[in-house]
């Protein structure tokens, strides 16, 4: 894999990469999710689709017309569309 530069949220510490900033095509493991910042039903739906702590994810597509919303996230053999607001509460660590 190439050493693609990662641009975390400016205000975040360098090691706290969130899913919304994960470069396209880069695999990462979800290490923490702040479920309290999401609607309870939405959290349940995300978990039902396998997006939870421990899941290996990558961003397949992001945005339309130059925007950064929504995201198409690959998890296992599925692709799940979600919004940046959901990705923002998920801390990920790059897979090696």
């Amino acid at each position: 894999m190439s050493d693609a530069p990662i641009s975390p949220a400016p205000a975040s510490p360098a090691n706290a990469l969130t899913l919304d900033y994960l470069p396209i095509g880069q695999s990462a493991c979800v290490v923490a999710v702040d479920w309290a910042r999401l609607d309870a039903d939405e959290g349940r739906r995300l978990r039902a689709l396998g997006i939870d702590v421990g899941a290996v994810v990558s961003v397949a597509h992001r945005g339309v017309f130059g925007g950064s919303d929504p995201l198409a996230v690959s998890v296992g053999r599925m692709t799940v569309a979600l919004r940046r607001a959901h990705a923002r509460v998920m801390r990920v660590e790059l897979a090696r």
Partner: protein
Amino acid sequence: MSLALRPTPRTAALVGNPNAGKSALFNALTGARQKIANYPGVTVERKAGRLVLPSGEVVELTDLPGSYSLHPTSPDEEVTRSVVMGEFPGEPAPEVLVVVLDASNLEQHLVFALEIIALGRPTLVALNMLDLAERDGLVLDPSALSQALGVPVIPTVAVRRRGLPELAGAIEAAERQAMADGAVHRQAHLDGAERRMEARAIAQASILSETARHRLHSRMDDLLLHPWLGPLVLFALLFVVFQAVFSGAAPFANALQAGVDFLSAAVRARMVPGLWRDLLTDGVLAGVGAVVVFLPQIIILFFFILSLEASGYMARAAFLMDRMMARVGLSGRSFIPLLSSFACAVPGIMATRSITDAKDRLTTILIAPLMTCSARLPVYAVIIAAFIPHRAVGTGPIGGLIGLQGLVLFCLYVAGIIGAMAAAVVLRGTLTKGAASGFIMEMPKYQLPRARDLAIGLSQRAWIFLRRAGTIIFQVAVILWLLLNFPRAEPGRDQIDASFAGHIANGVAVVLKPIGFNRDIALSLIPAMAAREVSVSSLATTYAVAGANEAQTSHALGDQLKRHWTLPMALAFLAWFVFAPQCMSTIAVTRRETNGWKWPAFMLLYMFVLAYVAAGATFWLARGLGL
């Protein structure tokens, strides 16, 4: 318990994640003879069919709405949960549960399977879409899976009819087998995360080999979800659909029209002249015939909508549209109900059940009727054919491909969309104010739509349309004919002026005069409250009556309209129908979906106001431009 000892089950149900190929399996097992209705009290579709077991016995097989778990996050999932648990009023729990799994996505689909199996009920697993798994380079071991799950696993490829007899046999044996096994199941009390780990372990143990192949659908997504090309493809696709709806249907519509004319001529030749003959030809045949000729257009439109859905593209369209929908306070999820409303607002409004947020859902219901439904097509088609010249826009190789008539139709669709978006913004800022909802959606694999499934879907839609033409439109055509012909005018006086309808229309016409509508239009709008397309048949009836016994009767409706209307009137009439809420079924389904008369009443009011303003603006603008 004598019930439990019955050798063969009477009921079985298919359960599984959305996109497991459940519907295709259901179609393959039950054939075209399906009963489609709503679960009582809710508006979730209940699909049931007859499955003949190897013994010759028949079970009622239901296709339960796709679910990710027994912890519902939508009304659809709620129905599945309560039917499976036997808690749905009037709906006995299915005796056998058939969990349908997508073989190429076991890790995900097994989570729900484990939850169902843990119920300890007679259960079996249909390992579906094995061919797609093979396409992805997966080789599975069904017997290992069966051992790990403790229930029979039957490999199936619904679309090739592989594994169907085995599945029917397993359903027959399921109850006995479960009793023989003593129904001992492990992992009964796992929580969600534990179940997911278990599913992952079982999936990995069942995969014999896995070659990393370049998967077709990720390459297709590279184009279809491309931030710039994706929306262009979507827009181009929608444009092609509408051009096809308009021009592709013409030969079939002409053939149907010729059939109606032939019938009408045959009746004329065989019956004695008089009121009964006129009722048949000018009332029934002219009225119903004018609507039935639009069947080809409706079939073509549904063909595209069903194909897009079956191919998996619909979810991509939702993805592409999410940002735009978010701007008006909705999500990409609203896109599918709204797109369905292009065919008919009734299924569109019913499809809003998949929207989890209540305010999102209400907003979508309220704007869905602004999407140009197929019932408007008869109206648009007649007016456009009569008043818009049949020629290309501009010249040159590209300009020559775009017909002016198709372009006008396209503009009417766009007007509806813009109106709906504007209405959504206003509603979200006022009546349905609240936090913006999210958008979470599985993107299914791309698949080639199957001719058989499309045919079943199309025939169901065509039947609904024809039944409407045969019942409500038939009745309205007859009633209108009666209103137009009674009381009889004195000799030498105009029949319409003397009739009941004439008197009603006189009143309505006063209100509609400022927006350029004449009395004939007012007259056609009265019965069109039942359904928009009735306005066409009532115009046909009106002008057939007005031209009775004249050479005029042989003129097509279009020629009659050109004779009586100006171009600004015709354009205003089109603008009216972009917005007017003239459909009893839509009002009825809105009442049911919103549980009361408050929102349908609001819908009627705001849409009539929009229609009045739009028609008036169009009329005076067109007049001002000297058209």
